């Protein structure tokens, strides 16, 4: 009988200092199927895929490709076996163009001279075929996270891999893009490619996957046919108890204005036009205002301008009645602004610092953490970090002294959220706060955001995820090409209507 499995990972065990990331895990991927891998942060999904991709060596267990045992010692071995992967944190060369990144390592050449023309044609064809819109000549550092991911996917397609691993591919995509991606995945599977799809978005798994294997805290829980399982059952398998998928919240009671933005204009780093064009809005105490929109419509620059990371071309920002338009970043933070940044590795953390140092990254100079001679009070810092770890359930190998780099993405994010909320801000700016997190952590962070609102803080949420936008916010502002094109009430609007605004098909004249 012909072997029906493209990839089999049998009894894989992988340990890290202080933690067993994978404990006797078995996954079998059928040919031409979309197999979802479901689990919370730190459940060991990424580790397992890294073992398959040759980034880590498992201590125990074997990997079979088409029924034959194989050794995968590095990503080159994996590539040779036709295994491709889109990583959660992209592996792109920032100062190269999209095209260069796609062909990197397999550059078509004649006598050592690059033949980029052929490559470009092939890339454009793939891009056309799968609707993965890219500009092949743009530099990676200049394009949005969404476009970077499309580049990663094209990289895999360009190499004609048979087994495709998607490590949380939808985390950064817009609803429309996610739908497109789902379609692409289905097409790929229909063409005989086998797909491993790592996610903790149950809707997507339900929509696209044939089967689903669940991991929990490094252990294998089981594999189910997705058509037979309900979302509730899947989430219970994942977290070990029942979770509430919808945010419970009271009616908001907006009070006085905490943030007033008038006519904000921010220049773009990518093109000569302004990325944010005369945005005006108000955030009141006791409400969650959400800026919705498709990635790359000026949200990032808007937040940079608001938090002081980029200067304004024009406009005025008032926080708690104080003009902070030209204030330095430290002044803004001290005036009651908290900022959960979009990119936790770039801005949120000093990855080579231990967790406790990261917890006081904005407060190290306060008397509690520095004495009057300028010496750090290390014991206080450690105690404070222990308190946050305990209170916000941040998990790491060695507690407060763990180097941030070695923590899982979800726990890194939890640490940032803990730090920003514990500052007791007047205004909380949360940019994609649940990007790449599992259901349990998302539920937790949403609760924290609502709690801040109920405590009379203003919350400005920037999100690309429709569900989050609809669930958490009290007021939705849609941003399209750097302008606010609509103000919607989440109770009366629908996801479809929101989608039309986000796509620029509909717009109102909005007054702040």
């Amino acid at each position, binding site marked *: 009988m012909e072997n029906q499995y493209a990839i089999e990972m049998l009894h894989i065990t992988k340990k890290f200092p202080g933690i067993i990331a994978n404990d006797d895990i078995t996954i079998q991927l059928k040919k031409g199927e979309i197999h979802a891998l479901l689990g919370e942060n730190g459940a060991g999904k990424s580790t397992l895929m890294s073992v398959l991709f040759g980034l880590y060596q498992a201590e*125990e267990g074997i990997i079979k490709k088409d029924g034959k045992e194989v050794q995968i010692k590095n990503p080159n071995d994996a590539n040779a076996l036709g295994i491709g992967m889109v990583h959660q944190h992209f592996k792109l060369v920032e100062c190269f163009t999209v095209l260069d990144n796609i062909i990197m390592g397999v550059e078509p050449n004649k006598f050592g001279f690059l033949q980029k023309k052929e490559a470009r044609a092939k890339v454009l064809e793939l891009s056309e075929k799968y609707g993965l819109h890219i500009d092949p000549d743009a530099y990676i550092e200049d394009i949005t996270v969404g476009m970077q991911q499309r580049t990663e996917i094209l990289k895999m397609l360009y190499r004609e891999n048979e087994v495709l691993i998607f490590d949380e591919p939808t985390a950064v995509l817009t609803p429309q893009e996610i739908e497109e991606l789902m379609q692409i995945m289905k097409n790929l599977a229909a063409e005989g490619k086998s797909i491993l799809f790592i996610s903790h978005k149950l809707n997507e798994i339900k929509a696209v996957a044939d089967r689903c294997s669940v991991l929990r805290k490094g252990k294998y829980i089981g594999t189910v046919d997705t058509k037979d399982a309900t979302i509730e059952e899947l989430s219970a398998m994942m977290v070990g108890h029942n979770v509430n998928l919808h945010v419970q919240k009271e009616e908001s009671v907006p009070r006085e204005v905490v943030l007033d933005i008038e006519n904000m204009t921010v220049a773009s780093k990518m093109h000569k036009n302004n990325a944010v064009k005369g945005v005006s809005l108000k955030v009141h105490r006791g409400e969650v205002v959400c800026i919705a929109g498709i990635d790359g419509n000026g949200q990032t620059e808007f937040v940079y301008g608001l*938090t002081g990371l980029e200067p304004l071309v024009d406009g005025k920002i008032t926080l708690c009645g104080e003009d902070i338009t030209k204030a330095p970043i430290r002044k803004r933070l001290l005036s009651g602004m908290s900022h959960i940044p979009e990119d936790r590795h770039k801005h949120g953390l000093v990855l080579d*610092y231990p967790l406790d140092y990261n917890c006081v990254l904005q407060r190290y100079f306060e008397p509690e953490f520095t004495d009057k001679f300028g010496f750090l009070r290390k014991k206080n810092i450690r105690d404070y970090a222990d308190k946050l770890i305990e209170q916000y359930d941040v998990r790491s190998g060695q507690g407060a002294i763990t180097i941030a780099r070695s923590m899982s993405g979800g726990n890194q994010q939890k640490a940032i959220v803990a730090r920003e909320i514990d500052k007791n801000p007047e205004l909380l700016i949360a940019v994609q706060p649940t990007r790449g997190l599992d259901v349990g952590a998302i539920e937790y962070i949403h609760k924290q955001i609502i709690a801040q609102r109920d405590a009379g803080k203003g919350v400005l949420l920037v999100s690309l995820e429709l569900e989050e936008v609809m669930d958490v916010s009290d007021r939705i502002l849609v941003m399209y090409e750097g302008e606010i094109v609509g103000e919607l009430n989440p109770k009366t609007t629908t996801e479809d209507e929101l989608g039309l605004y986000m796509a620029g098909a509909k717009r109102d004249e909005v007054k702040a």
Partner: protein
Amino acid sequence: MIKKILKNEAFQSLFASLLCIILGVAIGYVVLLFINPTGAGEAIMEVLKNFMHYSKANLQLKNFGGTLVKTAPLIMCSLSILFAFKVGLFNIGAAGQYCVGICVSLYCALALGMGWVPCMLLAAVAGALYGAIVGLLKSYCNVNEVISGIMLNWIALYSTNMILTNVKEGTSPYTFHLSTDGPQAILPTMGLENLFAGNEKVTIALPLSILTAVLVLVVLEKTKFGFELKATGFNKNAAKYCGMAEKRNIIVTLMISGAIASLGASFLYLTDFEQWSCTSSAVPAMGFNGIAAAFLGGLNPIGTIFSSYFIQHITNGGAFVDKTMYCSQISDLISAIIIYLCGFVFFIKYMMNYVIDKNEERQALKAKAEAEAEAKTQEGGDK
């Protein structure tokens, strides 16, 4: 137990540094063998023996003192490199800042007749300002600090030659002796010469440089200032996000780095141990040796004290190599080889960890196989 020691960070640094030294000496020996096999063993021993070359205790002590005199500026140069490195900057301009230090301390001493304290302080200020140029270019014009540092090294060298021509002897290219023309600027010995058989060149420079090492350690590890600087070094964007003045931090770091290097220069030239040759056509090697010393010391300020001494020890030892068998450049060659190998500290540490991990893995697998085999035999017994 042994495993624990092997995994200890400090032990690894020490072990790696020692291994580098041994490798460097071995390769140096091989090179000597190629040039002239008969004297190789003796020559390499001379390099390592340095002042032990002399049999009289008195002379030994005096020459030991001589090595220490040049160790002080090397400690300062390696601290300068280390400090900048911890903030993510590679201050190759330390050599030029060192040169500026020479220029200012000698000019203030010989032309302006200042005492040693103002000479030293002005040298430090000048070094800081010279470092600030690199910092300003880096933060505001995004010029790589290595490029601007190297350029400024040459500017510093020729400016020094030009300025010090005003205070040189008529017929030779050397500057005046401090002992005759500027005794007020000679660093005090505070009785240290008594420890080194009356070698008056051993001055407070040595304790001052060790004090600087301790200061650098404390600032980097214990203070708010160090917290900020290291955060900027690790992740400039995060530092900015947290409201740290990351541009100012880069400038301040290079200023401090420059001041340390420059002070190092005054530590040597204000002892009247050496004179400056106004026809020098190369930047003093001290600043570059500081790079090797910083790495050999495992990028630890206290470690640099020992690594600097070692590097100075073999550099001085090179002078004792038999010049009838080897040409006079051989001493520099051998010390250069050893210094070069010193840069491999981090590579060796990496290899150590790799070997330890592999071993552990193998042992774990073995233990598991044994346990399984045992379980199987027991099963068999049950049946």
